[in-house]
């Protein structure tokens, strides 16, 4: 097991290197750079070439590509992401500002998704083809069919029209004012969590149905074991593995992928930062965010793989 963990950890290094090379090159293929984005956008078409060259020099964009890459990698090795090409502020500062919100939202949405998906999936499976099963299936298909941002818009409009109320527009950390914090984040968490719970519910249901038909469950029933015990000790533990994978990967995705939902609820999160960094051709910030999200995915994948061994002792790693 220890060898397996070490092997997986080492395998992360070439993966990260690959991601780094890919994002570095892809960004430079896209037309324009941070200087053009800054001065050729709104009304600013009249800038002299001298000014543009001076700004490029300041940002190191006049350097050959290999040199820019080496400088960036040397910084990464020291865990120094450098400065944002747009604001000139340290990237760690830019990310830190948005990270608390994105992490809290991801945790809230994932928790909500898990709390809905697992019981509903189990219930639908054990009550297969009854009205309960149909109701759960309708509920989950509706969740799959509705994009979370659209649900978010509906929520906002409903609150406005029926209650003449809107969630707070500025993020307040949980430890500063829990009420304000929850009043702002509960709605996007519900919109996003419902969407992901739908995926989880369907996966849990089909996985449970498969497990419930296994020989060892039939044996347990034949032995006269209490149904609740069969479900909790034998069925759920085995059926939950694929659901765990899905919810974990969704959690990693939620950290940087909630662009439209963040826009609808005006949340100052990593998703919006990501899109703005790309639009502004902020190479350094985009690179840092891609590396951050890639690291999350690798870590989550790694943790899920380790959790598999704990949940299913039949799995042996070599």
């Amino acid at each position, binding site marked *: 097991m220890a060898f397996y963990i070490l092997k997986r950890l080492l395998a992360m290094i070439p993966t990260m290197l690959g991601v780094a090379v890919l994002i570095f090159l892809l960004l430079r293929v896209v037309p324009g750079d941070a200087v053009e984005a800054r001065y050729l956008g709104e009304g600013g078409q009249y800038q002299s*070439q001298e000014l543009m060259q001076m700004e490029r020099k300041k940002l190191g964009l006049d350097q050959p590509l290999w040199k820019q890459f080496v400088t960036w990698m040397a910084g990464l090795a020291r865990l120094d992401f450098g400065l944002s090409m747009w604001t000139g502020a340290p990237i760690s500062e830019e990310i830190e500002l948005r990270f608390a919100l994105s992490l809290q939202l991801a945790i809230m949405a994932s928790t909500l998704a898990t709390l809905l998906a697992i019981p509903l999936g189990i219930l639908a499976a054990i009550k297969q083809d009854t009205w309960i099963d149909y109701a759960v299936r309708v509920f989950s298909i509706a969740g799959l069919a509705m994009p979370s941002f659209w649900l978010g*818009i509906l929520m906002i409009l409903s609150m406005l029209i029926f209650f003449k109320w*809107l969630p707070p527009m500025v993020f307040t950390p949980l430890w500063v004012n829990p009420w304000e914090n929850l009043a702002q984040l509960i709605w996007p968490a519900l919109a996003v969590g419902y969407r992901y719970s739908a995926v989880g519910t369907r996966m849990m249901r089909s996985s449970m149905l498969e497990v419930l038909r296994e020989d060892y469950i039939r044996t347990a029933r034949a032995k006269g074991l209490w149904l609740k015990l069969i479900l909790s000790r034998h069925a759920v533990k085995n059926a939950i593995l694929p659901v765990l994978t899905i919810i974990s990967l969704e959690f990693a995705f939620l950290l940087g992928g909630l662009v439209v939902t963040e826009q609808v609820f*005006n949340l100052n999160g990593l998703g919006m930062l990501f899109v703005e960094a790309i639009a502004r051709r902020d190479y350094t910030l985009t690179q840092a965010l891609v590396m951050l999200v890639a690291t999350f995915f690798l870590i989550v994948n790694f943790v899920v793989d380790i959790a598999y061994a704990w949940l299913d002792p039949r799995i042996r790693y070599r």
Partner: protein
Amino acid sequence: MRQFRSLFALLAIAGLALPATVQSQQPRYGGELVFPVPSEPPSYDGHREETFGLIHPFAPFYNTLLRVDPNDPSGTKPVPSLAESWTVSKDGLTYTFKLHKGVKFHDGSDMTSRDVKASYDKIIFPPPGVGSTRKGQYAVVQAVEAPDASTVVFKLKWASASFLAGLASPWNFIYKADILAKEPNWYEKNIMGTGPFTFIEHVKGSHVVGKKFAGYWDKGKPYLEGFRAIFMRDSAAQVAAVRGERAHIQFRSFTSKDRDNLKAALGDKITVQESDWDCILMVGVNHKKKPFDDKRVRRALTLALDRHAGSKALSQIAIVKAVAGVQVPGTPFATPPAELNKLAGYGTDINKSRAEAKRLLKEAGVPEGFSFTFSNRGIPMPYEPLGVWMIDQWRQIGLNVKHNVIESRAYFPFIRKGEAEVHMDFQCGYIVEPDLDMYKFLSTSRNPANYGYYEDPVLDQLYDKQSRATNLEERKAAIRAFEKRLLDEEAHYLMTLQWNRIIPHSSKVKGWTITPSHYLNNTLDTVWLTE
């Protein structure tokens, strides 16, 4: 006697009504103005940045030497701000400004002419390594001098009709000379001015908070206790914020549909201010590409556009409205409609115009069904509806146009390559001033941002003539001649429709007047809230 009684009754009513009217117009102190801002600036330096995202939340921390009259809806009249008064020498080459006394920076130090000189030196003669995006606009200035603490003198190389308007630029914040001397880029990351509000906090991506400056030089102002600018990219979220009464106003613009929805939902709680907007999309025709090097083809393109019908239809769905030439309609140098309608493509008889367009195309040897590519910027409003509209208009004179939509940030790098045949271009001004609005159209050798890639010495001469004219009528005549040559005789560029600025705001907001520029009127010193 009855007449007297009626008179008394009238006087009594007037007597009762007058105090109420006066009272309702009497500014009230206190309150926090909340407004969404759709864009966030990269730095805090007004001398460097281009986006209104800097002006809306950060202008209240600063003053400029002059400002545009906050009560003038035309947005064209420079009035004193830090300057108390000014005189101009007979030859028009020396402008002397007397500054207000007792103006303090937010750190408590006195503002003097040294600070004004240092700020303008940074803008006009930036030291090495300092970026000034508006240096070119002040090419007329030879030197800035500060003979005593309350006097600033600008020496010009030639007489300029637009110089005062240039000094009313909302970007030209007055910074502290001592700070600039130590670190010329200090203001990129820090805020410290003489404005009516002091800086409290800026949480990136979230909001900016300002608080009333107790030591403000304009006694009695500001009225607000503070303001909170909230960065909000999504227009639906901005509308929801105003509708939910979480925000009072958004200073850029909403669409006509948003206006109608807000009015329907909130009724009298919403006040709507509208104005022609000093922003316009125009069509650049690449003179280096055949057959667009032939002015008959360019004239045909403009003759095909039914601007009057387009105005009626497009104003329902897009943020455009008025038919315009090179100046915002209704402003001092704008061509009156009757005269404007004589230009190619501005006539009211579209069938006649299109027949002429077809004749010109035939004469130029352009076959029926001729195909070309129209490049457009990937911004939905108003680029998309205007692009679709124009393609349909050109189809009606037998042209087959391919719509090439390019992602917003990649758009100008593409246009600058000179590969586009016909493309959408735009400009937005911070003040309606012919020098600023017409600079775009000078020959490419004088303005590399002219993406029509033409050389027209006659047009350049007309520009210079109006720019240096000291007589109003002489200037107007030169502007008309410039406009006729640009849009009609040579048809170098094609104007679409003037943008329409719509600000539906909470009726609690008073003391703010809309102007044609979304860069103006954001100092907030005159704004107050009724409750």
